Each structure stands twice: as C-alpha cells, then as structure tokens.
C-alpha cells in the first residue's frame, strides 16, 4: 500500500515528490549563496567606522531575524508583485495581473533571511582573528586586499564554517515556507499527498528522509571544507 503510494507509476506520488525535492535543493542552494552577499556586506558594515553603516547593518539583521520567516516571505511575495504591477500600471496603464516568478521571489526572501543570520556568523569569525595579526600585516606594509585575502579570510573561514553550516541547514528548511507562494517544493508536495491520501505519516517521513539526505550530503562537504580550512593547525585537547 505504502509502496504503491510512493511509486513513480500512475497512482504513485513518486514523481511529484522527486520534483519537489529537486525544487527544494535548487531554491536552498541559490538562496544560501545569494544570502552570503548581504551577509558579508552587513558583517563588514557592522565593523565600519561609520556609525550609519553600523546602524544599517543592525537594522537589517535585527529586523529580518526578529520577525517570523513566514511574514518576510508574505511581504516579499505579495509586496513585490503589487509593486511591479503598480509601476506597470502607472507607466503603461496596464492594470492586469503580472505573474512574478515564484522561484525568484523565494530566493530573494529566503536569501535575505539567510543573509541576516550569516552576517552574525561572519562578524564573529572576523572578530576572532587577533587584532595583532592585522596590525603586524599593516606594519609589514601589506596591501588591504592582501590582508583580507591572506590573513583575515582563511582564519575567519575556519571559525565561520560550523556556524555557516548551521545557517545552511536552517536555510534548507526555511525553503519549506515558500509553499505559500505556490512553489511546489518538497513540503508542499508532501502536504498535498498527505491531504489527498489521508496518509500523513508516510509522506512526512519521506519528506524528513529527503531533508536528511540533503543534510547528509552537505554535511560531508562542510566537513571536508573544515578539514581543508583547518590545515596547518593542530588540535590540542585539555
């Protein structure tokens, strides 16, 4: 019974779930990567000597992290399409409905949320690099860019990786919320199948296993990155 429900043939939800799974991974990867941009910018801004830049970073991270994810997604999805329609109406006089690509909106909203969390992780990681090293590099006359790429970045990356891994996992699961925009990712597919077949556990378990598969794969990548960025350092145990 359960197996036929999950099969790929007629009467089975296999292909629906597979498409949902692919959609989830596509949205999650794009959102996380996109989110690193505002994340890094906010982290840098929060260390800036200009008070207004620090304030801007603080407003972004506090606001986006502080309100529930679902609200951010609601406001983005329906906000952007209303705004674009309003622009078109004012400029061309066309008053109809314009479909805004649900994928793009999903990436934009989930990415901005993800970025707000990355910002904190990146900020902490940069702060963990001892000030003396940067001062020493400056004393040696190294260029700003060299200091960032050769001294700050490699050391900060090592510290940031576990935190970024956490953010990535959260982002992966946040994608389940964009189903309100009509995008059929894995949670929406599972919900639909559960509602139609009255078999909620089968489908929630399958969804959980698919998420687990994704995190398993990504955890391996992060572990390799951690080993790579920690090369040249030995671990001392108390």
């Amino acid at each position: 019974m359960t197996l036929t429900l999950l099969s790929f043939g007629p009467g089975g939800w296999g292909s629906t779930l597979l498409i949902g799974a692919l959609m989830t991974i596509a949205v999650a990867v794009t959102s996380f990567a996109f989110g690193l941009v505002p994340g890094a910018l906010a982290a840098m801004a929060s260390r800036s000597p200009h008070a207004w830049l620090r304030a801007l970073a603080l407003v972004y991270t506090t606001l986006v992290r502080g309100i529930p994810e679902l609200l951010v997604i609601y406001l983005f999805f329906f906000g952007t399409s209303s705004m674009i329609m309003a622009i078109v109406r004012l400029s061309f006089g066309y008053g109809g409905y314009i479909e805004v690509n649900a994928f793009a909106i999903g990436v934009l909203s989930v990415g901005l949320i993800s970025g707000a969390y990355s910002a904190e992780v990146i900020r902490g990681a940069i702060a963990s690099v001892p000030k003396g090293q940067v001062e020493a590099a400056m004393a040696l006359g190294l260029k700003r860019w060299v200091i960032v790429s050769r001294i700050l970045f490699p050391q900060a990356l090592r510290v940031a990786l576990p935190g970024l891994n956490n953010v990535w996992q959260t982002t992966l699961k946040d994608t389940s919320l964009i189903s309100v925009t009509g995008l059929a990712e894995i949670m929406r597919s599972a919900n639909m199948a559960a509602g139609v077949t009255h078999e909620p556990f089968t489908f929630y378990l399958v969804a959980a296993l698919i998420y687990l598969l994704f995190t398993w794969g990504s955890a391996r990548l992060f572990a390799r990155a951690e080993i790579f960025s920690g090369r040249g350092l030995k671990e001392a145990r108390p």
Partner: protein
Amino acid sequence: MARSWIISLALMVPLLGLTPAAAQESLPDPVRIGIEGAYPPFNFVDTNGEVQGFDVDIMNAICAAEKIRCEFVIQDWDGIIPGLQVGKYDVIIGLGITEERKKAVDFTDKYWATGNRFVGRKDKEWDYTPEGLDGVVIGVQGGAWQEAYVKAELPQSVMRSYQTLEQAYLDMEAGRVDLVFSDTVLLFDFLNSDRGKDYEFKGPEYDDPKYFGTGVGMGIRKGENLLRDTISSGIRKVRESGEYKKINEKYFPFDIYGE
C-alpha cells in the same frame, strides 16, 4: 534624486493597499479560480497534478452555464487569501460565509451547506447539553464556525483547535479528544472510511444561524460585483438545470445544498 524617492513612496501606497486593479467593468478572461487541492472529496490533486472533486465539477458546470472560460490555480491554503487580494486569481472556491469575513472579501451565494454534528466513539455516550459536556474535550477546526459555537455555548467543555480536521481525527483516535465537532458532510466522509468504523454521529444536528453562517460560497475581491453576480447566477442555473444534483450524487449519497 529627491523626486525618485517621492515616486517610490507613491508606489508604496498601492503596495500597502494591496489592491491590484480598480473594480472592473468586464469579466476577466479567463476567470482564474484559486483552489487548495488538498481537501477531498471537495477538491484534491490527483497524481498527475490535475485538480478533481466536487468543487471542480461544480465550478466547471457554472463556467459552462455562464459561458466563461475558467482556469484553476492551485494554491496552498495559508496563502489563499493574499493570493486573491494580489490578483493571482479572481475567485476562491470553498469559503464559509460569515459576516466578519465579509469585511475582507465578498461572497457569492452559497453552493453547499450542511448541518453540524459531533462524532465520537461508539462505546461512549454523553448528555449533549452544556452541563453534560462539562470537562469533555471537543476537537474543532481552527477558525471554523464550530469553534465559535463551542466557545460561546459550551463553556464548560475543553476545546482544542486543529489546523486540519485530519489532525483532530488523529487526536480522537489517540484518546486526547472525546468528540469532534464539524460539518456533517465532512464527518460523513470520515465515518465512511475504514478508520471511522468505531465512531458514529452523536447528539443532534446544530444549525443556529447565529454561529453557523449561511453556507459555503466562493470568495471574490471586494467590489467586483459583476464577477460575484455572474458566479451566483451560475450557481442558480446549475441548480435549476439538475446538473447540481448529478454532481452531488457522484460524491455524496445525500443532498448537500441544504434548503
């Protein structure tokens, strides 16, 4: 620079209002119907991704009777009202009509309405009065009419609100809930299924209009009267032609239109 700020502020105003277009003189073509697709037997998506069910058949019949082109848009229930307001579709199928909701959306005439009843285990019986249900745990669907009724009329019982009826059934099976209170037609579907065999209808049928609204209709953006009247007239035509009865019999062994 300052001017562009003013223009963007002006653009924010309709954004906040979330009204996509002024009231139309003509009907949209096609008329797009927002539908959940996870509410059998009323509407559900089959494994090919097509919507089916009572709602779909009725809507197709209405569109044929009014000679309009209709198109279904599947939308998660949590986003169904915002989707209407922003113009993703023009009609939502299957909204319970109440005065309070009329502040947010307009309704067509009802297209189904059944009474409300309790369902409970066959081997248990209560006295269905406020005192008789003292301390009894009643499961309802959150925001449904039954919730308001239990809150006001059965204050001594313990109410639990679920997001879906499915969850209320699960908790009744687990013994966390004694009775589930909902629309007769929905409960009928549960009782008829394999897992409903230990359960039965309990107590009288409730239909106090003070709580139970005036049935289930279609939701339309406020002010779009032409569309609303067209759909309402479609419902009447389908009733008169006997089409309704045919579709009704395909899904339910009793009349769900009410009087």
